[in-house]
């Protein structure tokens, strides 16, 4: 894997949102990469820039107010920020597809799900109606939706939340993309359905040898599915590594705080840890390390010096000079 060129690679990506009299630095220099067939998780609190940094890869930053002010996004070696709209449309859905958070609202209420899955295919391929129907049925069957021939003619409101999310995944898979971006696909679902959807994602990924960029704030999910993990905080990646490194050997105080606040069998009866304070407003970030006001390990230099990524082990890097130096 390490010798291969990554499928998607962002380098020092910066996405700012221009407000009336302030600039929100939602993503402020994020570099991540995904290899073919790999599952990568972007983890972080709400508003830390996970979704924005993934949307940028599809060229879907709402503009204005959003603007990509710096960095590159390389998909299969080409910088997709330099592509025009037509070329982007050929990539979207066909090579990079996306599953959204809310299955309730991500399907068009006035079309049957068959129409919508069919549209996903027809946008990128010329295909006869018969073959299209067959493929839609097959997709729904792969998603584990019972009696797909009938469900094809259903409207989204006639399906349950989990089924709708399965339909969304079917649409995302319709053109056999190389990369699927899943933006908190299980957050709006209840826990039992969540597990089913995760298993489904995993099985289709193995079958299609597709890379998945999984955006979530649920560390429990991450440990179950991820090959590698990026932990984001306030528009920056603060720690990256494979799942074992990040979960077993976290270095950054933010990652440690997140892990400590997970409920666990060992912590039964005790109060859960919580990280004091809240995520800084992206328009008014503190100087130096963005995490220092909430950090128990902060030293004087944290308030002024912006930390760099420090390599620890093979593939494991973190953005905390204080803890990284004294392992």
């Amino acid at each position, binding site marked *: 894997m390490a010798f291969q060129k990554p499928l998607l690679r962002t380098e020092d990506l910066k996405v700012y949102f221009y407000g009336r009299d302030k600039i929100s630095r939602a993503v402020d220099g994020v570099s991540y990469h995904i290899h073919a067939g790999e599952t990568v998780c972007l983890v972080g609190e709400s508003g830390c820039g996970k979704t924005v940094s993934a949307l940028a890869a599809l060229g879907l930053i709402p503009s204005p107010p959003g603007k990509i002010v710096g960095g590159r996004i390389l998909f299969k070696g080409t910088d997709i920020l330099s592509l025009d709209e037509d070329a982007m449309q050929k990539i979207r859905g066909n090579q990079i597809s996306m599953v959204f958070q809310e299955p309730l609202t991500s399907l068009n209420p006035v079309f049957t799900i068959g129409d919508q899955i069919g549209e996903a295919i027809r946008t990128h391929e010329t295909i006869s109606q018969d073959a299209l129907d067959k493929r839609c049925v097959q997709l729904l069957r792969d998603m*584990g939706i019972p009696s797909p021939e009938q469900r094809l003619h259903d409207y989204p409101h006639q399906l349950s939340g989990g089924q709708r999310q399965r339909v969304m995944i079917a649409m995302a898979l319709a053109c056999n993309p190389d990369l699927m971006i899943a933006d908190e696909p299980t957050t709006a679902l209840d826990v039992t359905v969540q597990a089913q959807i995760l298993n489904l994602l995993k099985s289709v990924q193995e079958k299609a040898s597709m890379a998945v960029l999984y955006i979530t704030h649920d560390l429990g999910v991450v440990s179950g599915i991820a090959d590698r993990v990026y932990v984001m905080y306030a528009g920056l990646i603060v720690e990256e590594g494979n799942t074992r490194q990040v979960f077993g050997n976290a270095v950054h105080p933010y990652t440690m705080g997140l892990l400590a606040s997970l409920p666990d069998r060992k912590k039964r009866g005790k109060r859960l840890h919580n990280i004091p304070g809240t995520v800084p407003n992206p328009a008014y970030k503190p100087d130096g390390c963005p995490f220092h006001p909430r950090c128990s390990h902060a030293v004087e230099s944290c308030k002024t010096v912006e930390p760099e990524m420090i390599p620890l082990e093979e593939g494991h890097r973190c953005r905390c000079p204080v803890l990284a130096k004294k392992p």
Partner: protein
Amino acid sequence: MAETLTKNHEILEGPQAPRQSRFVQQFRLFKENRLAVVGLVIFLAFFITAVAGVVLTSGQDPVFNPSLVRLQEKLQPPLSLPNLETLKAHEVPTLGIYLLGTDDLGRDVFARMLQGAWVSLTVGFVAVGIAVIVGIFLGGLAGYYGQEGICYDQILDFLLLLSGIIFFILKWHKLGFGLFTAGIFMMILSFRARRVKQNRFMPGWLHKSAFSFDTLIMRMVDIMLCFPSFFLILTVVALLPASIYNIMIVIGLTSWMGTTRFVRAEFLSLREQDFVSAAKALGLGNFRIIFRHMMPNAVAPVLVSATIGIATAILTEAGLSFLGFGVPPPYATWGNILSDGKRFIFDAPWLTFVPGIAILIVVLCFNLFGEGLKDALNPKLRQE
């Protein structure tokens, strides 16, 4: 997991409710609204009457002659019998009775109403068709592209092209041609500059946004709304040759503002919906998203307002005819029957009541029908 899925699959393939086609379901929902069904029935009757009216009242020797003058039989009340002694054979009304009376020239009001029905129907549909198409198009663009700016160079292109055309029409051929070519040249330059995202040929301020697309369209709407539209129609009709098609087009082109505002408002909220982002993430083009994905979500309320618009258009035509600016006589429309009758309102009240009540019923049935349509088109209500 795969095993459990297939297992579930087998278990869940249970008996299915009998499926109904979309149309059947819509009709079933529609039927539940009694008033709407009444509206539909009256509308169908009106439609058949209008079509039959054209067939029966046109040609050299029509079955019902709406313009046959019988001065000796003028102002006969409805259901009165013709005096067969004073009439020639071809002057006797076809039904042998003046069903709706006669007017001041002894013309059969029933025949005239038949002839006028077609005018009302086509005016209503064509005018509203134009208004809805223009409204949906402009409203959709304004709502979807709302925040996109219009840059100075685009305004400049447009002004150059427009002034070129104007000068050409004014017969200043050389100047007009020069300006027009300059406009096209500028346009190509602007396109190129946008494509490569850097402009070597143009100063930077030309690419600053002057105002948003939304502003452009909505101010156009405001300007159109500022005109008292009835007088605008009067002016235009006075300038153009009097013909029923001109009136339809003019009514259509002065009544699209409501639909535009409506569609824009719908689009502003639809644009933020997740399914629009999902459609974008699937790689669909903007026009496909606007007209195939968002429009059906916005069209149900538009249809309802369109049915009411048909009623308004019929009223406007009647008003124009009433003022004598409408369809030229001797062609009868409901409006000019009404207008002719107003002089005899105390002597022959049926001359005003008959067309008035006909307009009332048709307008009412359109409104009821529109209301029922709104429910039938809502997929959320379309459940087994």
